[in-house]
């Protein structure tokens, strides 16, 4: 079986699903063993935020990777990656509302209005909701062309996510800049000329690995 064939198996999908659960499993293990450090709530907030960004970037890497490799079957897993990004974003949001603010909704509202990094983070989360709701096959059919237009929102969401991270760190911008750099590459890969270039490389790569 070639790579293309393997990518389209149920085993691959299951493996990917389990891999996506790893960050959550890690948090649970650390929580049970007292490994979350001195400030567990900060640890959980950071971790779920990190994995939301990773999920978004993985989702956005599917199309460039497909063009580069010619493995069209990759697209079948994009929805799952996107939904995992939403799942970790929800955990991140719940951590903030529950563990960090303890349902002090007035304080949450003040934060959203006053703190730019929370404003953009909240906006990114809200914008993810319609994408998650319309991720089903039925919704894709119902929305037709408009589905793709709607789901282009993810580009803006990822940019807001990087801004959220950039504006929150105290001084060391290394981490958010890494995420920003990867995002810039993935968005750049969508420019028509670059996309064409990637596509041009596809057959060679595919035949070598196939």
């Amino acid at each position, binding site marked *: 079986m070639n790579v293309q064939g393997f990518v389209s198996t149920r085993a691959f999908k299951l493996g990917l699903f389990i891999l996506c659960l790893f960050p959550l499993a890690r948090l649970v293990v*650390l929580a049970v*063993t*007292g*490994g979350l*450090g001195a400030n567990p*709530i900060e640890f959980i907030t950071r971790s779920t935020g990190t994995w939301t960004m990773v999920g978004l970037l993985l989702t956005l890497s599917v199309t460039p990777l497909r063009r580069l490799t010619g493995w069209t079957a990759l697209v079948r897993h994009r929805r799952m990656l996107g939904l995992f990004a939403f799942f970790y974003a929800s955990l991140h949001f719940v951590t903030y509302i529950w563990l960090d603010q303890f349902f002090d909704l007035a304080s949450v509202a003040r934060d959203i209005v006053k*703190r*730019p990094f929370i404003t953009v983070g909240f906006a990114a989360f809200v914008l993810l909701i319609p994408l998650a709701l319309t991720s089903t096959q039925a919704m894709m059919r119902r929305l037709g062309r408009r589905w793709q237009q709607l789901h282009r929102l993810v580009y803006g969401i990822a940019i807001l996510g990087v801004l959220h991270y950039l504006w929150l760190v105290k*001084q*060391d911008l290394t981490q958010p800049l890494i995420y920003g750099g990867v995002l810039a590459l993935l968005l750049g890969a969508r420019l028509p000329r670059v996309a064409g270039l990637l596509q041009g490389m596809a057959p060679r790569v595919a035949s070598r690995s196939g």
Partner: protein
Amino acid sequence: MRLLKPNDISPSEITPPEIYRERRRFMQGSIALLGGAALAAAGEPQAATRIAGVRASAYKLDEDKTPYKDVTTYNNFYEFGTGKDDPAANAHTLRTRPWTVRVEGEVKKARTWDIDALMKLAPLEERVYRMRCVEGWSMVIPWVGFPLAELIRRAEPTGNAKYVEFVTLNDPKQMPGVRSRVLDWPYIEGLRMDEAMHPLTLMAVGLYGEVLPKQNGAPIRLVVPWKYGFKSAKSIVKIRFVERQPHTTWMAAAPSEYGFYSNVNPQVDHPRWSQARERRIGEFLKRDTLMFNGYGAQVASLYRGMDLQKYF
């Protein structure tokens, strides 16, 4: 086990660090059993030495002390990396002997102090202080040290000495973090003369009755409990008395976010986050941040008539 003489342990101490380390070993054992030994690798505190002859003091708090393990594994000390667990993992390369502290500037008696002489300069006492980080978390720490005023008196400042500047060691060989340009090194902090002379202002050489762990700013650091934590410079090598207000490291890094005074103030927010509440390490719910970190009765008079929104 050796029996301790009565004055070896201060009366306010409840749980000795041995117990914390015991718990820690137990926890590491449990983690290892679960196959996660690697997870526990970061942040092993050094086996510290007890400081003899530490006196109890009137500076106590009716609040739970933050466990030794948390005090020594959750640190901001950018000279060893910007992650909270970086200092505990990296500070072992710091050499705390020989160590000297140069006292100079607008003083009659400039002098280079050997650390061991400094530790005998005045009786060492235990003081339990709140520590509020500008990031919104706090601890309660039993420091061992002596009032900075004792050192200042011996230096005999001239009339030109209006401020005191503190300089942290800047050695890329011992401090991997200073190879990164995240801040301008060396780390510089400063106090107004009356703040430096205030009886609360402490030169700390230990915590929990033991020699200061390296990640906490060994061998000697400043502790100014009514100001945000970054004002309390660590691993100090120079104390300069100056006429002009020092340009501190965080002021240089982000002048709109960090002012010279940086007094704990729940009414003056950091531009990017609220300072109204804080998470006490070890507690679940946030608690209200107190004006001057709860030391208003002692220090509010220093700032009478000042607009604290302006002089943040």
